């Protein structure tokens, strides 16, 4: 059942005279995990923000499949964007007095292994813990689509690895359609079903990742994608 969840048609986005995106066409299937990689300034965040509806395209359209009621979409930003004046629990429920909302928030805190931190304030948490709270907040109200803009960029390698596994696990269990923006090709190769390379303001290349990949396969995919981003064609192609 490969029904399309997000359909991007001929998207263009310009800021004044600067072309951030040029003729992007992309279909994303329900339940798919996409990684957007590419050089800095390549338009990854812009594309994600357009999908999230945080910005409007100059031309073209983004269509979200609305077949069962309103498909909820949630963004997890690079910065945690937690509200420092609210407790961790309130950051999930936005201070809602509703019992079910609170219970759901507590459940999600347990899921990200922060069940004991409901009453803490964000300033009392470490960077990784804050991002876990932000992840839990994104999962409130049962989204169908999760948009992640380098949410792990500020974390150390070990925490990053644990967060990757946590996100992967949640996305698989809840059957989320996920787009992850990252500049780390290794991370993309580890996590994604499909890697999209953003270059010269468009999606210039894509690579399907093997299922149940091992470390070796991850390395091969990462190398190939990196070569694609940096324009380092394999030697045979040059001499041919």
């Amino acid at each position, binding site marked *: 059942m490969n029904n399309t969840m997000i359909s991007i048609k001929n998207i263009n986005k310009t800021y004044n005279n600067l072309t951030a995106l040029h003729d992007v066409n992309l279909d994303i299937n329900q339940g798919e995990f996409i990684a957007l990689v590419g050089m800095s300034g390549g338009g990854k965040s812009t594309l994600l923000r357009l999908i*999230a*509806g*945080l910005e409007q395209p100059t031309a073209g359209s983004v269509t979200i499949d609305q077949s069962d009621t309103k498909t909820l979409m*949630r*963004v997890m*930003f690079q*910065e945690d*964007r937690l*509200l*420092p*004046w*609210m407790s961790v629990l309130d950051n999930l429920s*936005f*201070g809602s007095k509703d019992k079910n909302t609170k219970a759901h928030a507590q459940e999600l805190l347990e899921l990200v292994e922060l069940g004991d931190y409901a009453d*803490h*304030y964000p*300033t*009392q948490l470490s960077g990784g813990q804050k991002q876990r709270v932000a992840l839990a*907040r994104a999962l409130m*109200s049962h989204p169908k689509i999760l948009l992640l803009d380098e949410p792990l960029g500020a974390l150390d390698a070990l925490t990053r690895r644990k967060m990757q596994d946590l996100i992967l696990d949640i996305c698989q269990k809840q059957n989320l359609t996920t787009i992850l923006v990252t500049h780390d090709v290794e991370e993309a190769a580890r996590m994604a079903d499909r890697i999209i390379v953003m270059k010269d303001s468009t999606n210039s290349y894509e690579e399907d990742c093997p299922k149940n990949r091992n470390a070796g396969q991850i390395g091969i995919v990462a190398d190939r994608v990196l070569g694609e981003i940096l324009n380092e064609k394999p030697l045979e192609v040059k001499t041919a």
Partner: protein
Amino acid sequence: MQKPVSISTTRRKKFTIPVDKFLPFLIPIIVVLLWQVSSSLGWLSSSVLPSPIAVFQDGVKLTLSGELPKNLSISLYRATVGLLIGGGIGFLLGFINGMSNTSRLLFDSSIQMFRNIPHLALIPLIILWLGINESAKISLVAIGTMFPVYINTFHGIRSVDPDLIEMGKSYDLTKKQLFFKIIFPAALPQILVGIRYALGVMWTTLIVAETISASSGIGYMANNAEDFVDMETVVLCIVVYAVLGKISDLIAKSFESLLLEWQNTGRSNA
């Protein structure tokens, strides 16, 4: 994570708390003692400065006669009503101009122009308009306190992190929630700075207004005592103002720590 506190920290805490509480009072106490000693030894003539004990006795006398409580309460009334009106208008204008660009373009530069007039310079005009009754004094306090509250509310709201607002919008908060959950709490520290500043302006304005034109109030009491060369009462009034100023500052501070509890939870401010 907050459980293992090392012994040395607890010990230091126990030791430093009383000293922290006591230190701010040290200098006032020394000054009053020196003052009393100088008066008692005759170094300080009572026609220059009466002794603290004399001032205190004068205070007791005026309290028992009911004069001090009466004037104190009328001053407090003017200060409070003036602050509520001025602060209220300042907050409202700051809120509207902070939230709406049209309103900001329309009003802000005019308000800024008006702000540059020292409000005490309006005293003659206000007396001409309103006479020397209550509304004159209350209006002056209101005008004086309006601007600090306005400016700080306005800047507080304008400088809310746009990333947080974007987050709120993308998490489907309603306009009302966006204001009460994000914009207002984010602007609150700055608004409270404005209120604290306004409290200072409130007392200065009131002293001047009551000294120039009034038939009651602490400022009037001081001015009246001056006519009778009643040194004790003049000094008493100054002390009363100092105490009132300190009390309002303490109230403002406790409001701050109550409302901004989250600011004191940082790991670095432990």
